[in-house]
């Protein structure tokens, strides 16, 4: 019987809560999150509005639930997009080696010079702020991360006997890459994807808070916080809930990723 690391267990619980809420919001929210009802504004939590209402009379719980869905979609698309490009580049670098490998790694180094925020700022200045640009910016910072980890893991597999045997049997580099290398390095890639998912949630919230991500009326935790900030003296509670949601989601996916890593690669278990 495998003993699951404690961070993995907490991570699974938090991720289940966040994903469950996001999925539930597809079919049910307590109220219509987009429904404006000025006469009901600034309600404290009560049995009709469990977390109260905001400055436009919208139900806060429904907004938070709908925002969780958006946050998950943005993180998923950004990590899938950046992760696939990065993984392909890493596989290419490892399979060909030589100057191609050097070139890919230098490009990855340069990618690290651009934090997501700077890239999003450039895209917003050129195309105007939008959630799509935020997704591209977050995907972009994922490319070098995945390229590096894929190359490092793939280089190890290329030296194994069964790969040498396949080469001796006349298999091409591309077939070996997809039949033997990729399946054997999936574990570290999936672990990294989980951790990057947490980073992406945080980045989306920050970009939306700054007005570079989700635009009204699309609900987003980050934007809810920036709206609540102007009402701190009137309704400070509005600035609490979205932040808690962000922390739960980021903590959940972060712990889940850490736990998966400890489970799949016992050599990496660090002092805790």
């Amino acid at each position, binding site marked *: 019987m495998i003993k699951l690391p404690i961070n993995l267990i907490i991570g699974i619980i938090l991720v289940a809560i966040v994903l469950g809420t996001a999925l539930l919001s597809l079919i049910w929210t307590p109220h219509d999150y987009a429904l404006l009802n000025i006469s009901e504004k600034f309600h404290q939590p009560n049995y009709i509005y469990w977390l109260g209402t905001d400055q436009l009379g919208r139900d806060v719980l429904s907004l938070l639930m709908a925002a969780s869905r958006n946050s998950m979609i943005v993180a998923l698309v950004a990590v899938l997009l950046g992760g696939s490009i990065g993984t392909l580049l890493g596989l290419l670098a490892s399979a060909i080696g030589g100057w191609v490998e050097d070139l890919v790694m*230098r490009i990855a*180094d*340069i990618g*690290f*010079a*651009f*934090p997501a*925020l*700077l890239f999003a*700022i*450039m*895209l*917003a*200045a*050129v*195309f105007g*702020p939008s959630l799509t640009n935020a997704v591209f910016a977050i995907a972009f910072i994922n490319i070098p991360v995945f390229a590096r980890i894929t190359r490092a893991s793939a280089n190890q597999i290329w030296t194994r006997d069964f790969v040498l045997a396949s080469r001796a049997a006349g298999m091409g580099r591309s077939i070996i890459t997809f039949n033997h290398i990729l399946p054997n390095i999936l574990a570290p890639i999936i672990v990294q994807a989980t951790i990057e998912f*947490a980073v992406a949630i*945080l980045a989306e*919230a*920050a970009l939306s*808070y*700054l*007005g*570079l991500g989700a635009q009204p009326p699309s609900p987003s935790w*980050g934007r809810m*916080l920036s709206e*609540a*900030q102007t009402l*701190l*003296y009137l309704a*400070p509670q509005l*600035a*609490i809930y*979205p*932040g808690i949601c*962000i*922390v739960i989601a*980021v*903590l959940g996916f*972060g*712990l889940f990723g850490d736990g998966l890593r400890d489970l799949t690669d016992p050599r990496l278990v*660090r*002092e*805790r």
Partner: protein
Amino acid sequence: MAYFLLRRTIGFLLTLFTVSVIVFGVMNILPGDPALTILGLEASDDSLAALREKLGLNEPLLERYFSWILNALIGDFGKSHSFGVPVAGLISERLSMTVSLAISGMVLTILLALCLGIGAAANHKKIGDWGVMFFSQLGIAIPAFWLSILLVILFSVKLRWLPPGGFPGWDNPLMAIKSLILPTVALALVQSAVLARVTRSSALEVMRLDYIRTAKASGFSNSRVLWRHVLPNALIPIVTIVGMQFAAVVTGTIVIENVFYLPGLGRLIFQSIANRDLPTVQALVMMFAVIVVTANFIVDLLYLVIDPRLKERN
């Protein structure tokens, strides 16, 4: 040693060059017509043509790139489209704000992280250790802008000790420092969470080594062993993260300045985006990217100072 320095310096310059190409490319080639981006779809053909001429858009792309880079090297970033004054002037007016925030944030980050990390390592597997680990796990998940809002709710809205935002200028030093306290703390708390964790694990690695046991057996006090023997030898991974964090702190100031309405470069970027002021955004993005790349380069060089063995190896 000389070879190592040369290789790193060439790599640094190449990275800077590529970064400048990317910034220029995204800002000048992607939009198709920057004049249209700046003036919007309703602009008349005449005004578009006039702006193209003013921005030098009729020149060949390569020529524009090189004139931008060469002018930037002598401190000329062109003219701001929305403010109507040189971008360099706008930057120098606001630079001190961003620099003081970044430096105070970084100093507080390092102080907090070293104390917490070494403290946790000294109390390994005791309550203090668990406390630090919990703080660092939480700190990594809390967005700096939300922490800022929480600090404002507590210290400005409830207790009324500190201003919720804005900056009165250095003419009134006491008020100026007061208005920088919350932004600095918000910037540093989140960053120190990551650094404390690295400090702790790096210190734990060193504490297992024989010479630490020898030092303890020689009768040195615990704190002397920790600060004089463990910390200097645990510095390499710490410095790596500090370099990365300096970059994070610098870009963090962009967010924090917007949370606290501080008149620095981060605010200027967002004003420029709202005004579609491409030359200003381009100059500022390039500046922040240069700071990030330079910070990483300095970290590379610092390795040599911290670990003299690397000099021989290279």
